[in-house]
């Protein structure tokens, strides 16, 4: 018996463009990162006041998760503990760390300090969607699809999770990239096999 899992949806955001399942849904080239992120939020008509308080890493990952889950994801068929997140990046929370430490020279800002951890983006996605399952944030110099795939398969194939969002969310100043994959046990009409090769194909710019 082969245990196969499927990428039932994907979302990538980079170079001023948003893609879902390989299709470009939005473009705003030339804007600085904060303005670009706000334009994505507005374009998709999202309504979540906490968005404005987030650092750029959380905004980027949170937006990608919103777009990833929009439409065909049937959250109701899962318990909160059955949905998890495995994310990675290369710059941890350095983008916000620099901003936080600039604030220290004047008066240290608790609202910036709380974002000096990379896993806060996972927390923000969990709060928004009431996801309570397994999660982890890994640091990798480049996206390691083999490793991420193995982690997710372990959790799904042992029924620790029933579905998992995995992938990459990285921000440092004007450089940014996210690629999120929704991995489920059942295929749908758009799904591809959950494999390192298929993740890398979607990840590639």
């Amino acid at each position, binding site marked *: *018996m*082969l*245990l196969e899992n499927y990428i039932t949806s994907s979302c990538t955001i980079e170079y001023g463009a948003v893609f879902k399942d390989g299709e470009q849904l939005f473009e705003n080239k030339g804007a600085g990162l904060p303005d670009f992120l706000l334009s994505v939020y507005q374009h998709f008509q999202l309504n979540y006041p906490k968005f404005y308080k987030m650092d750029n890493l959380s905004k980027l990952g949170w937006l990608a998760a919103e777009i990833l889950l929009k439409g065909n994801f049937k959250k109701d068929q899962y318990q*909160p*503990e059955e949905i998890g*997140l495995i994310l990675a990046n*290369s*710059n*941890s929370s*350095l983008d916000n*760390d*620099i901003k*936080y*430490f600039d604030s*220290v020279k004047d*008066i*240290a*800002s*608790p609202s910036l*300090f*709380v974002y*000096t*951890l*990379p*896993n*806060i983006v*996972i*927390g*923000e996605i*969990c*709060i928004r*969607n*009431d*996801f*309570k*399952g*397994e*999660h*982890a*944030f*890994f*640091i*990798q*110099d480049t996206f*390691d699809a083999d*490793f991420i795939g*193995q*982690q997710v*398969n*372990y959790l799904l*194939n*042992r029924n*620790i999770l029933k579905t998992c969002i995995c992938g990459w969310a990285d921000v*440092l100043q004007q450089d940014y990239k996210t690629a999120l994959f929704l991995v489920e046990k059942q295929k749908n009409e758009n799904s591809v096999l959950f494999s390192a090769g298929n993740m890398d194909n979607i990840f590639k710019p």
Partner: protein
Amino acid sequence: MSGIDKMRKPDVFVVADNVLSPLGKTTAENFGKLKENVSAVKQQHLPAISSPPFYASLFGKDEIFIKTDAPVYTKFERLLIASIENALQGSGIDTKDNKTVLIISSTKGNISLLENEQYHPELKKRIALSSSAKLIAEYFGFTRRPVIISNACVSGVVAMISGMRLLRSGQYENAVIAGADVISAFILSGFQSFQALSPQVCRPFDKLRNGLNLGEGAGTILLSTDEKYRKNIKVLGGSVSNDANHISGPSRTGQELSYAIRQSLHDADLSSGDIGFISAHGTATVYNDEMEARAIALSGLQSVPLNSLKGYYGHTLGAAGLIESIISLQSLKHGLVLPTLGFTECGVTKPVNVVASPLPTKANYFLKTASGFGGCNAAVVFGK
């Protein structure tokens, strides 16, 4: 790979370990000091880090930890190298074997480098945890790409769970799991801005608890599936959950940590009655300890002896889960649960059995819990 093979759960043995803290350079030195009730938390007068004095567990500023004076290694990396080197000594684990994986856990790694110079692109590379992991991997000759976990205050527990799973999956036979954090102005100012620091040695679960102390340290644990270690203590199960409630405040109910506790017991094929003692996170902040007590009660563990080691070490962040698990392994081996320094009167609404003085034990199993920013919770079970 067949489904049945994937479900296999080979035993994962603890081969060796190390705690490197201001109390000592080996696990034995540390456990010896703890048995004498010595705390590393002291009032610190360090105007370079903080103008008001503060309580923390810190290394002396001239300690270099490893013999090499090569300037390439930062304090964070030196701590990790020293801790890993000591744990490896005589362990029989070959770091050059491609069945051996290195796992590094840290919350902030080399972030103190930001304090001394303006940010510039080369600094980004030096601060990146993957650069530190690469240096450490090269130092010991690891051949496989290191795994790095940065998941707030549960990092150390998640690193052990990840190591256990990588070994169970059969991809590796040995795991070298090390965590460290260094306390600098960056971290200290943040906890000060949150008003989370206690103006004295912290008092976990106590009625008068008023915040945490920070601490420096490193911990290393070596795991293996090699049957030659079959008489050793095992890591039996683990689980991670999220509160989905608030990024900087814990769950109001403790249900999510309780879920992780129950899942870790399930993974270990144990029930709550098997657990002999609990090494709690017990940071001594009002909200953490209250949430943890609720979670422990919800898991049916309210009468199980429980301690927090934060009064001895402070909160060592990415190393905490490792250091506190390794000390608890000593408790299991020596049949002695350490007290919770600073605890006199229970100050949580769900009474839990906080150990206030050294407690002889015949425990076969213990539970380690941790929680942190981002709503994360983790639990791991060890046993004979």
